[in-house]
């Protein structure tokens, strides 16, 4: 049953990704990206990865959307003349993308160039996620802390007011 149901979020993911790329309005593109993240979350739940799915939903569909909307509201929108020019350019630029996507999809689904995927071992032979994060990969936690601190420092430096 899961095998059949997974095709719905998979197709939604591709559709929302295409919609993100092809739409002119930046805000709608960002909302479409969030919807793609939500579709990916459903796929992760179906593939038995609930913790990563929760992270994907809360961070990618939530926080990243908020950051994008903040950036869009803080930057200058296009003037009406620039917008008309942009529409013409976008049609010329992205008209080939759906065709390329359909060709690649058909190539992979029907011709399957050398693909022979199979699940080699049972998913139950793995220990739980908490054990992996805290015991098997503790250096990852250290790296994450360092990256977050570096990011905070970077944002602080970028938005620091210069003293004149």
């Amino acid at each position, binding site marked *: 049953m899961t095998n059949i149901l997974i095709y719905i979020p998979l197709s939604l993911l591709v559709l929302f990704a295409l919609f993100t790329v092809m739409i002119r309005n930046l805000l709608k593109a960002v909302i479409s990206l969030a919807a793609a993240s939500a579709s990916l979350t459903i796929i992760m739940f179906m593939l038995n990865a609930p913790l990563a799915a929760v992270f994907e939903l809360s961070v990618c569909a939530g926080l990243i959307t908020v950051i*994008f909307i903040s950036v869009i509201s803080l930057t200058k929108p296009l003037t009406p003349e620039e917008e008309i020019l942009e529409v013409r350019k976008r049609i010329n630029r992205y008209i080939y993308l759906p065709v390329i996507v359909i060709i690649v999809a058909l190539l992979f689904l029907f011709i399957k160039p050398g693909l022979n995927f199979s699940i080699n071992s049972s998913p139950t*032979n793995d220990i739980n996620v908490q054990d992996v994060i805290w015991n098997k990969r503790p250096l*990852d936690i250290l790296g994450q802390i360092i990256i977050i601190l570096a990011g905070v420092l970077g944002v602080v430096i970028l938005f620091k007011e210069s003293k004149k």
Partner: protein
Amino acid sequence: MLVTCFTVVVLLYVIGFYYLVTTRNLIRILIALEVLTKGVTLTLILAGKMTGQIATTQSMVITLIIIEVVILAVAAGIIIGVVRHTGSLDVRKIFNKKE
């Protein structure tokens, strides 16, 4: 099912790279990187499903998401700074601007 999942991964890479190459807007370049990251996340989860090590790949996905957010936050700050200085989001206008 796995072939379909990997087809979706390849499609996400194609869409992301096409967008990254064709767009000139700084915010849209970040969106292209996000689309590519979605593909990478799905690849990792599928690799975990195939090898039976889904817990290990989940921890890697969490690390990937954290790196993604930090990069996005810093890039967003840089974009806001660039727009304040140059008044444009277009890469060509920014690099052709003469002081």
